[in-house]
């Protein structure tokens, strides 16, 4: 009863402090790297790369693993003809082998205003940046090339993929400079950066995906069509998922200035959750429908566990 009259110490909920400063190198948490360092980020698709690596290459070579037989065509090297098949069938077949190559991974961070939200935890942007940094380090560690895209309506930033270890600093600098602001359509921003993804590889999107799902779907389809392995890491705040507010509140939009809504949260909770659930289902269906990986996580979850689970499941599927 007394709580009814007790004034709230702070009327405006301030943003949760960014905990990334706790780490010596900013975004890459050694604890997380300890947990996921022994894992590998394998591409589930064939990728283009110059160097021998862990991933399947589009190039068929003669080095390691048998891939298929193909009918001989003029111009093929004679030494690649499988003479044993010729002896059985009296036809020329070329024996092709899988060749491993390195991966070009792109981590894309959504920096729209809604990513700033974080009430009881770190902001979604901070969580996303940390996850992106860890994945970038992991990829570089396994000799893959990593680049970064900061998706923003006004200040987009692209860090091209490089394979050398020193490139991590450039990626971390780009991630640290990311600030959530403004609105904008995420799909449009992704499409804007697609031309820069020249070689097929891995496209990892860190976003809350709020906005127009159709546009986002179109953009991801294009990415997918260009041969990229798409991973959408859907970062949400626990408050957005549960919506357990009990007091009358004034909700101010983080993306559109001046947009404000006074209401009794509990009264609209049912409707809100219904819509939110529909949105999540649509997004998951969209991503999995185009062959990508969908990982939903909330900022109150341990990043190491989430990434560990994701990587393990990917390795399992790759096998």
């Amino acid at each position, binding site marked *: 009863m007394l709580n009814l009259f007790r004034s709230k110490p702070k009327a405006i909920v301030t943003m949760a402090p960014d905990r990334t400063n706790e780490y010596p190198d900013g975004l890459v948490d050694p604890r997380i790297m300890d947990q996921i360092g022994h894992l590998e980020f394998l591409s589930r698709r064939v990728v283009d790369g110059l160097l021998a690596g862990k991933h399947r290459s589009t190039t068929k070579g003669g080095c390691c693993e048998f891939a298929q037989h193909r009918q001989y065509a003029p111009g093929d090297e004679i030494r690649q003809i499988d003479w044993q098949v010729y002896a059985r069938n009296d036809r020329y077949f070329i024996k092709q082998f899988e060749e491993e190559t390195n991966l070009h991974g792109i981590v894309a961070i959504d920096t729209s205003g809604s990513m700033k939200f974080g009430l009881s935890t770190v902001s979604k942007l901070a969580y996303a940046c940390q996850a992106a940094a860890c994945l970038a380090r992991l990829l570089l560690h396994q000799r893959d090339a990593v680049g970064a895209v900061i998706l923003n309506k006004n200040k987009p930033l692209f860090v091209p993929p490089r394979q050398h270890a020193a490139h991590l600093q450039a990626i971390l600098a780009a991630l640290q400079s990311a600030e959530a602001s403004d609105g904008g359509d995420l799909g449009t921003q992704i499409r804007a950066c697609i031309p820069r993804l020249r070689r097929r590889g891995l496209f990892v999107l860190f976003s809350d995906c709020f906005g127009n799902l159709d546009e986002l779907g179109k953009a991801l389809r294009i990415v997918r069509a260009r041969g990229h392995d798409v991973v959408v890491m859907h970062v949400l705040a626990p408050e957005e998922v549960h919506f357990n507010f009990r007091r009358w509140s004034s909700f101010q939009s983080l993306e559109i200035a001046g947009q404000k809504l006074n209401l009794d949260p509990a009264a609209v909770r049912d409707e809100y959750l219904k819509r939110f659930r529909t949105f999540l289902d649509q997004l998951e269906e969209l991503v999995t429908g185009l062959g990508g990986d969908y990982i939903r996580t909330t900022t109150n979850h341990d990043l190491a*566990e989430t990434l560990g689970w994701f990587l393990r499941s990917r390795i399992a*599927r790759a096998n």
Partner: protein
Amino acid sequence: MSFLSIAFLTALPLAAVPILLHLFDRRRNVVIEWGAMQFLMEAATRRTNARRLKQWLLLVLRVLAIAALVMALARPMLPGNWFGSSDRGETIFIVDNSMSMMRTVEEISLLETAIERAVTMLDDIQPGDSVRILLASPYPVWAMGDGVRVDSSSRQLIADQLRELHPTHGRSDLLSALLTAIQTEIEPTQQRRHIVLLTDGQGSDWSIADEAGWKQLREMLKSSAVPTELDVIELDDHSNNVINVAVNTVQTSRTVVGVDQSFTLVAQVQNHGRKSSLPASVTWSIGNEAEHTSRVSGLKGGEVRDVAWNHSFSKTGVFALSCGIDVDDELTPDNRATVVVQVVDEVPVLLVEDAADLAEIQQDAFFVQAALGWIDGEPLDERGVFAPQLADSERLERMNLQGFRAIVIPNLTDLNDEVIGKLHDFVSNGGGLWIALGPRSDVEAFNEHFFADGDGLSPLGIDCIVDEETSQAGTQTQKTTIDPSIAKHPATLELADSERLDTSDIAVSRRFRFVSPPQGEDVSVLLGLSNGEPLAIEKYVGRGRVIVQSIPLRLQWSELSKSQAFVVMVQDWLAYLTQPQATRHNLSPGDPISVYVANVENREATLRTPHGDDVDLTADTAGDGVVFQSSRTILPGDYILELGLAGDRIPFHVNRDPQESNLTPLTTADHKLLAGLSGLTSTTTGSAFISTNHADPLWPLILMILIGLIAAELLLSGIISRERFGSDPIAESTEHWTEQQFGVPAASNSKITAFETSRHGANIEQGQLTEEVGAN
């Protein structure tokens, strides 16, 4: 509509608290910067009117619940019979069982008439109603305090209970009985109360002078929680013409007498009626045996006459002496009165003698001894009950004073502090002290030790010695004499009899003058002088009494010691001083019985009351003996204390109030006065009726509504709460989703989850690969 506790209505604004809290809560918005506005905007526009209606309904229910609670506390009453006929009621019979109800009319006592009237009324009481019986004498006592529900079996039980009621010899207090009946807590199921007062209409029982009491009765009737009807049934209106001769009291000059010591008993006979009575015989009896008979001539209406009898006892003991008048009147219990007298061998008293070596008549205590019938420590033939023992002041310091009932200092000399302290203790424990000032008394020492600024044994200080003969102005000497009529005191009643005694002729030539008491304070005076100044004054110290006299009890300064009155004075005053330590056998109603019995082994005793009830008593140890005590003496009449197996019987008597013998009924003026004070609307004999407005209590209904409101509120708030927070939660992460799907930890079943999801992915991969190969 009326309210029994209207003050609670001031709390009605509290009903607005839920609305204020609601508004207050709305005003205290918490600002949240929110990202997922698109879902919130859509959800806010979909808020249904039904939900809003539920919220408003909840608010209304809460407001109504608080309002109902406040209303129920204010206990509203609805006029008229809103809720149909009253189902159950209560009837209280108040039976006046005072002595006047023992009057016989046509050979039936009024009490029997009252009881039969009550039994008749009992038949008319509806089954289901409850009945109580209250007795009005000597004070309101419940004969049947718990209401008995009337049905076929209990009806006879109640009638039997009524027929077993006893009359008392006391008065009744009808006002207190009515107040008691009205104040009695009523059971919640009963909706009306009917009080029936059955009385003989005797005026003295009605306490008409107590205006405040009757007004209080009126207020209580008005504010009664249930409709209350009051029937006053006056059973007889012929009291004006009755003849009632009563022996009001029997008095004696002393209740402790010696063996063979003659004493006088005086019975006060009064004709309480208006008609003259016939001559009648008066019989004195001891116990149940008649001892003496005399005749009393006819008494006029209201006439009072004293009948005296001298008697002496030849043996020790406690005796009940009764005086009965044989007259044919309608109220016989008051034709007899009793007094209890204790006959003892002797009562030890101590005389302080500081001049034993002088001639007899110059000794301090000689005249006091002589007045008691003793000379030189030896009893004469005609001695009284008091047995004196002589001691000088120095010996007083070493003596144990416990064995004496009184101490007389005939000529006060200087006493040391220790002796004065002993005297103080002696008096505090019930002893009597008689101090006579004389030539050897020192003014300053007396004022310091005996007066001690009001804390000592003397009620006043002394000023100086006054020479009465020389102090008179003028040439003719005028003697100053004792004036016994200056004060009406029980110890000087006999002294004041100037026809038989020479008290008023005793000249005082010299005396000590008492300092006048402070303005506004009064001092009890036993004897005064003809010049208006006090000669003897008294003071109560603890349980005992002290008499201070300004002249010595010897042949000095006055002629007191050689007067006739001196013997009477010594006997009466010693009797008066020794009273506190004597057992009180004649009591007023409610006075405790306290008997000291020496050398008794059996500590059990039985007290028999006038109604024949036996009360078992257990003694408390006190010194060498035991003390039996009881306060169950509220009923006037004869009490007998039977001690142990020896069968010793000690009589006690609780005096009745002579006023109860006055059978004068309420007059028309009295009825009018009662009507004005208490709202008594009808004064006709047989029925008087007071009724309050019929009003039904509304709060039980409001409490039921309150329960309904609370239940509805709980139900509605439950529904709203379920709507608000009852939605299924959304899985926070894909990891959890898979855990819930398969029921195993994600880390260990990654392959299974991978298999489920990778089949889909593998198909696409395969298709894509084929497409690409084809392209190649």
